[in-house]
């Protein structure tokens, strides 16, 4: 019989204080060598120099709800520019007596988005719900059927930004997926058309596409035929974003092992079924982070429509700043805009992280 070594009663010792807890964390992350310690101290000094004055400017010496005259007296931030001009910043030239319409339309939009973000509502009813919702929104914004008509030229401010962004994303994503599939197609015509489209669009800045859509495109139309300017900008944004989405999705498609295609084929699935049921769900999941990156930048790029004289929320804010009464408060106005854009973009990116987690199936 072999004899094993007697096992000593196991002692449970605490790890050294410098390794765990707050002290351990500080030691490991901030002061683990002399260079990092120096950097930490420098960073602390930098924060000490900048934060208190900024805080004082933004919150202590600031005015939030006052007239422009009161602002001239103070050293701090004049946030009053936002509430005093809120109507124009958010709704721009939309007729004042009709302004409840874009407000309701925006609320409807938020409700729809909020409803859709829950994966439990992804079923057959979702599409008709969106179609109805968009129809009601379109009716509210544009009018007709009992409401006075408001030309799209007067749509401005936040509703315009959100409409361009949302439709841009919703339109660009499926188009991008189709282009990605087209680029991987074995049919030479479809393949080369997709390649030409993607490379052409990616080689051109969005600004020039917006210019082309608003200035050059009408020249080619027969006389009397006009397309709405907002619609033209919208189409330009969709076409532009789709090309970028296409390349990202193509990357996802390439990441799917050949065996998945073969398994789908060997069950007798048709090409469309194999793509829809097997390949795309996996590929699109892989490319959630980069596609959301593109969608976020598309959201921000909607502000470029100023160059074709559309008044999105950035432009309405700028117009407010050109009002002599409120001139000189651009820091406040632009900070506010930054926060506004950040809220939307951060919501998108945190949702994408949530989605990624929810779709993870442990492989």
């Amino acid at each position, binding site marked *: 019989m072999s004899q094993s070594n007697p096992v000593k009663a196991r002692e449970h010792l605490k790890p050294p204080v410098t390794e765990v807890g707050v002290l351990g964390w500080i030691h490991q992350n901030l002061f683990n060598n002399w260079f990092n310690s120096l950097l930490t101290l420098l960073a602390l000094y930098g924060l000490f120099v900048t934060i208190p004055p900024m805080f004082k400017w933004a919150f202590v010496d600031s005015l939030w709800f006052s007239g422009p005259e009161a602002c001239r007296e103070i050293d701090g931030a004049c946030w009053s520019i936002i509430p005093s001009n809120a109507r124009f910043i958010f709704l721009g030239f939309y007729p004042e007596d009709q302004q409840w319409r874009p407000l309701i339309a925006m609320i409807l939009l938020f409700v729809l988005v909020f409803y859709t973000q829950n994966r439990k509502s992804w079923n057959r009813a979702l599409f008709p719900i969106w179609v109805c919702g968009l129809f009601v929104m379109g009716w509210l914004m544009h009018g007709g059927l009992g409401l006075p008509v408001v030309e799209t030229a007067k749509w401005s401010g936040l509703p315009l930004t959100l409409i361009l962004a949302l439709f841009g994303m919703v339109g660009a994503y499926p188009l991008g997926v189709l282009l990605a599939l087209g680029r991987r197609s074995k049919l030479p015509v479809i393949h080369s058309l997709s390649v030409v489209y993607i490379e052409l669009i990616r080689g051109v800045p969005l600004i020039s596409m917006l210019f082309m859509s608003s200035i050059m495109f009408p020249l080619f139309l027969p006389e009397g035929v006009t397309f709405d300017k907002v619609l033209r900008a919208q189409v330009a944004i969709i076409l532009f974003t789709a090309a970028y989405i296409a390349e990202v999705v193509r990357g996802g498609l390439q990441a799917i092992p050949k065996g998945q295609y*073969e398994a789908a084929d*060997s069950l*007798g*699935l*048709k090409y469309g079924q194999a793509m829809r*049921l097997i390949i795309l769900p*996996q590929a699109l*999941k892989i490319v959630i982070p980069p596609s959301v990156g593109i969608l976020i930048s598309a959201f921000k790029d909607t502000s470029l429509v100023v160059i074709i004289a559309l008044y999105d929320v950035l432009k309405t804010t700028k117009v407010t700043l050109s009002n002599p009464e409120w001139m000189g408060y651009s820091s406040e106005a632009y900070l506010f805009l930054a926060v506004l854009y950040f809220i939307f973009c951060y919501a998108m990116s945190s949702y994408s992280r949530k989605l990624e987690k929810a779709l993870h*199936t442990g492989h």
Partner: protein
Amino acid sequence: MDDKKNGQAPSTTDRPIIEIIGMHKWYGEFHVLSDINLKVQEKERIVICGPSGSGKSTLIRCINRLEEHQRGRIIVDGIELTNDVKNIEKVRAEVGMVFQHFNLFPHLTIVENLTLGPIWVRKMPRKEAEEAAMKYLEKVKIAEQAKKFPGQLSGGQQQRVAIARSLCMSPRVMLFDEPTSALDPEMIKEVLDVMIDLAREGMTMLVVTHEMGFAKSVADRVMFMDEGQIVEENNPNDFFDNPQHERTKLFLSQIL
């Protein structure tokens, strides 16, 4: 040679379920398969072996057109494989395939993996497809995992699911492409047991494998391939005890 041993009943028609006539295949300049002639009767179990690169996987992948052949004819269940997509889909629905690396769909649960084909190809109602799926999962002894995702299963379990996925389509023929080669040794048996059961039930099977024990116990015919040709085929007893060809002898001496 149609060896009807084990008192097997001859198939209702004399038409072979798979017929390959003078088939050639090239990868670019490389002649992978050369003059393949093969008839498989219903309920026949055929094991194909041979050194790697001999074209045995390519051969069975031609049968459901995962690979295209360039010359000769392949007729499966009366349908000739040509560029006609409709025919290819028809053949694929009747021919089950089990891969070396399982190729389960990782984004779907086990039961969804099994019902996908029946629902979308066979147009079976979901409820019925799920019942059938559970029946096959029980058959491969894995029913309790139905709600899990493939990534949560061991290799042997995944391969059994893959077999069940093919069975759900009620195929006329099953093709196995080295089904145990990617498995840990202790998992090989559980997969082979399932395949042996299947063979006993009279499934028509073409199996590419190095498991010679399996070949001995269930095969009606063993084929040896080398350099893209069928070098020798015989019933398992004669094949293993009395190989005719030098290359077969060499191969057997290396693996047995």
